[in-house]
């Protein structure tokens, strides 16, 4: 940094890379990205076949439903709320899909019913949270029990899905150049991420989500549509949970009341590891997707190793969540 007086125009690429300082907004997401890349590198060195691109694609295939779930959760957490009901809503969605198909509904109608039910439940919880000023934790805890209970009301046993359309979608693979493949569920998940990013950053609704997370009372005094937005994020989360339930039923081809037990916690963990502040106002939906991929990579690690108990997944996830929350705390404290 001495004699060179370079104008911004003739900076070399290296100068620009070296001079790049990410805004504090993107830092947590970059940390997650680095973690993901690092874990993959480590896996590639350690295990044969780990560094194959198909392993990455399979991560998406196996976790498409969790990505969609985390997208909805990101909206809620950005406002400073939480949605504990999503795991149960996934189970309920598989039950509704399986039972309506069994009853002979056309697949499109079954899917519509699932999405409608999830959105309705989310909206209901949002209304309770906003208009009765109930803590999101409590309201969605009630929603969690309600949805799980409704599953048993439909059937205590697992219902297999035998519909041709569902079979066709589940079996379909898009072949990519090089012999790699992805499934339609991956496209749905990626579309959800892209749409969510657009809504969060390019619409008034999305910016209001961030504003509420920053300070709800300020957002109200600024004349923003707080009520509509708060109810909206729970409706979106409910919709995403229902959509994730559809993807999950394509994955398992069955409806069962014990599906997706504790999956809401996986979604929350993914959002937190993805760099979203639990107190709201800060975070990116892409980060949540990366969070899901990190969780998936841990599982891939364990399956490649073969000697590790699958409980290591939980231990690593627990440690990561803890580390990320502490890092966030340190980073936000540094600011005035």
């Amino acid at each position, binding site marked *: 940094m001495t004699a060179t007086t370079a104008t911004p125009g003739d900076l070399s690429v290296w100068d620009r890379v070296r001079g790049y300082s990410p*805004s*504090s*907004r993107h830092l947590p997401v970059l940390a997650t990205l680095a973690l993901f890349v690092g874990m993959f590198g480590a896996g590639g060195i350690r295990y044969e076949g780990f560094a194959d691109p198909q392993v990455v694609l399979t991560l998406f295939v196996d976790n498409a439903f969790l990505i969609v779930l985390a997208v909805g959760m990101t909206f809620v957490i950005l406002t400073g709320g939480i949605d504990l009901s999503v795991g149960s809503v996934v189970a309920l969605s598989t039950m509704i899909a399986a039972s309506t198909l069994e009853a002979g509904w056309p697949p499109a109608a079954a899917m519509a019913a699932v999405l409608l039910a999830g959105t309705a439940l989310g909206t209901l919880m949002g209304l309770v949270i906003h208009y009765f000023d109930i803590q999101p934790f409590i309201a969605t805890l009630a929603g969690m029990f309600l949805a799980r209970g409704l599953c048993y009301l439909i059937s205590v046993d697992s219902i297999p899905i035998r519909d041709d359309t569902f079979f066709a979608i589940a079996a379909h693979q898009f072949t990519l150049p090089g012999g790699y493949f992805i499934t339609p569920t991956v496209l749905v998940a990626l579309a959800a991420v892209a749409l969510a990013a*657009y809504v969060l*950053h*390019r*619409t*008034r609704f999305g*910016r*209001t989500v*961030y*504003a509420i*997370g*920053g*300070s709800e*009372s*300020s*957002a*109200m*005094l*600024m*004349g*923003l*549509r707080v009520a509509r937005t708060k109810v909206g994020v729970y409706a979106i989360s409910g919709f995403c949970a229902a959509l994730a339930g559809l993807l999950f039923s394509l994955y398992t081809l069955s409806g069962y009341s014990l599906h997706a037990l504790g999956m809401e916690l996986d979604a929350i963990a993914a959002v937190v590891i993805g760099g979203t502040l639990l107190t709201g*106002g*800060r975070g990116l939906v892409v980060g949540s997707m990366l969070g899901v991929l990190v969780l998936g990579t841990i599982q891939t690690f364990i399956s490649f190793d073969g000697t590790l108990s699958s409980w290591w997944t939980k231990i690593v996830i627990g440690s990561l969540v803890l580390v990320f929350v502490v890092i966030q705390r340190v980073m936000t404290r540094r*600011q*005035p």
Partner: protein
Amino acid sequence: MTQMETQPAAIAPGRVEPHPVIEMRDITIAFGGVRALDGVGLRLFPGEVHALMGENGAGKSTLIKALTGVYSIDSGSILIDGEEHTFSTPAAAQGAGISTVYQEVNLVPNLTVAENMLLGREPRKLGRIDVRAMNRRAQETLDRLGLDISPTSVLGEHPIAVQQLVAIARAVDVEARVLILDEPTSSLDADEVEKLFEVMRSLRDHGVAIVFVSHFLDQIYEISDRMTILRNGTLVGERMVAETTQLELVKLMIGRELEVLERIDREVAATEAIKSGQPVMKALGLSRKGALQAVDLELYEGEVIGLAGLLGSGRTELARLLFGADTADAGELQVGSKTRRLRSPRHAIDRRIAFSSENRRSEGVIEDLTVADNMLLALQASRGWLRPIPRAERSRLVSKYIETLDIRPANPQALMRNLSGGNQQKVLLARWLITQPRILILDEPTRGIDIGAKAQIQQVVADLARDGMSVVFISSELEEVLRLSDRLVVMRDRRKIDERPNQDVSVSDVLEIIAGSARAEEATRA
């Protein structure tokens, strides 16, 4: 004043006058039985700066929030252009062209400056927010106000004063017919205030009606045309600024309390300056790395020591060491006849030392508890949770201090959040007085509260000292320190630079001591 021509014809009965853009009539609002406003009215004409005057707790902020739809009114009516209107949400008020900058910065720290200015009305292209146009528009508004702030920077990274300016920029960006500025200048420096006034004048000349609230009388007289004066939630009257002297205004605002101020002067002058006997507290070379250089201090019974010095001079740090809120690295502290190491506030309280922090909101007041609970907190803590204070004793103590300190409302069950700043401060004072301390350390006990409450608190401190309590009194207002203290300790750059009995010391003397030591330092360096 040439402003007379531009302002609307005043309240002359029988004459045709311009219609007020807003008229509030007989507004009454109560919070949990406490009447915050009682039959208050306000008339606002286009093209005027209207000052809303009153002490803390007079009802200014409540009146503003009633107008902007934050609070719903219990009775009375609001007329916009002669038609009755009630806004149920701030959004509705904004829609009608009423734009507000509240006392606390009400923006969101996690978004950019441009977003904070334009949230809710971002320029859009095909339904999506046009970020470029938004940043450009924000830049234009900031330029117009002469503010050098990057629109793309994150708001929370700026100091409060800048955030306040952004809040004003947001209010100005709306094509508002009515602009309400509630204490916008409290965190601004002189240049920034001047900038704000330029903007206000230009808006006024374009026919905008501006409501201006400020504690600084000079600012009121510089910028306002007309004013409405409130006291204790009631309407005192409406006056033309040019026709009212500052003295008249102060009298209208505080009523009888002015006499109290004058009386304290005499009483303190009457107390003899030097006390004899053993010091109740003695610090020897008390210091803490990065906070305070070695300080010696002796405090005698019935004495008030005034700690003078600028913000950051080490006065708060000294107070915290004396109380054990921070631990000293070196030096010793004698309380009574023994040398103590105050490891925690708990120790200090046991030695009957009380400390009222300067951060009233974050370190003192518990808003969701009642006045009585807030008062009894310290006493209960010192007794331990296993020995509850008997009910009769509780109510006796609480009503005694509500009366002595003239806390309003005089209701022990009122929620703390519903009290004005001055009354909250009195409750905090009562909290410590109830523990019957021998040494009372007060850090900025009168900051941000009105003249009446200030006078009462000063009076109480003077009375306590006369009854034998030793007081360390810290305040940014030198007049106040000089009025109350027997002995004066001057702090600068985290050390004690002077100590003298408070006899014939004037404010300019103290300023010279502070400035003089700076000059001496420069000389030694040179």
